[in-house]
């Protein structure tokens, strides 16, 4: 977590996928303060998307903690813009939606995930 699930109409090159994954990690960590260790980005292609979109991103992220509605909408918007740039697609051909997960429902690194904003002590424990 987070898991960014990207479906596109046509395949992207490896370089474009790499750029996009890096951009998403930069945006996610920059905005939320979360560590990059567990930022996952997955790509799949060949999918006909609704609304004439060329690419769709589903952002599966932790909810609650220090993440209010304004921050999550800003995250969604910045991801949308960042992905459009990294894939060289028109902004109106890219769609991004966000799904919030309670942190306590997931485990990584052998530990239940921390509430957003409480990553420091969690990282110290899980890396001890």
């Amino acid at each position, binding site marked *: *977590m987070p*898991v960014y*699930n990207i*479906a596109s109409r046509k*395949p992207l090159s*490896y370089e474009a*996928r*790499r750029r996009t*994954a*890096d951009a998403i*990690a930069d945006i996610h960590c920059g905005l939320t303060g979360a560590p*990059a*260790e*567990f*930022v*996952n*980005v*997955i*790509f*799949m*292609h*060949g*999918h*006909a*998307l*609704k609304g004439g*979109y060329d690419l*769709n991103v*589903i952002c*599966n992220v932790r909810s609650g903690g220090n993440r209010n509605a304004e921050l999550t909408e800003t995250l969604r918007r910045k991801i949308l813009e960042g992905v459009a740039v990294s894939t060289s697609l028109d902004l109106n051909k890219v*769609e991004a*939606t966000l*799904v919030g*997960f309670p942190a*306590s*429902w*997931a*485990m*990584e*690194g*052998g530990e*239940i995930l921390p509430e957003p904003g409480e990553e420091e002590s969690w990282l110290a424990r*899980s890396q001890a």
Partner: protein
Amino acid sequence: MRKTLILIQENQFSDAQVALLEKLIRNQYRNHVSRERLLVIWNRIPAGQAFTNYQDSRSSLVTMECPTGFPQKQRVAFLKAIEKDWLKISGQHPDELMLALVEEALFADVFQGTQKRLALRGRLAFMAKIIRTVIHASVKRIPIIVNPNL
């Protein structure tokens, strides 16, 4: 019927390992969560299509469904039980495994969300692929493993 979605990387696990991992999931699910039938779908991501922490990914992502109001103490016990045995079978580092036990309403959002974004013909194409894969797996008595590309 409850569902589990598992994402793994291409060429990471042998077919034997996948079968063992699925057996582990089913046994622990039965012991800790529910005796309901469990549909397990594996998404095997082709090389170069998954990234974790700025690198080509070696991670496995396991998302499982549970009833609404499932007790947190039982969830933690379940996830820890899977983690211990999964890492023994896979040889992965703990940082390479994400496990989630998600209540049915949110799980439905996740499960259906990947299809809701598709146009009708996209949905039909994807469902046809899933159905072919399920039939093949059923006949061969092997795990249901899907390549998510069309």
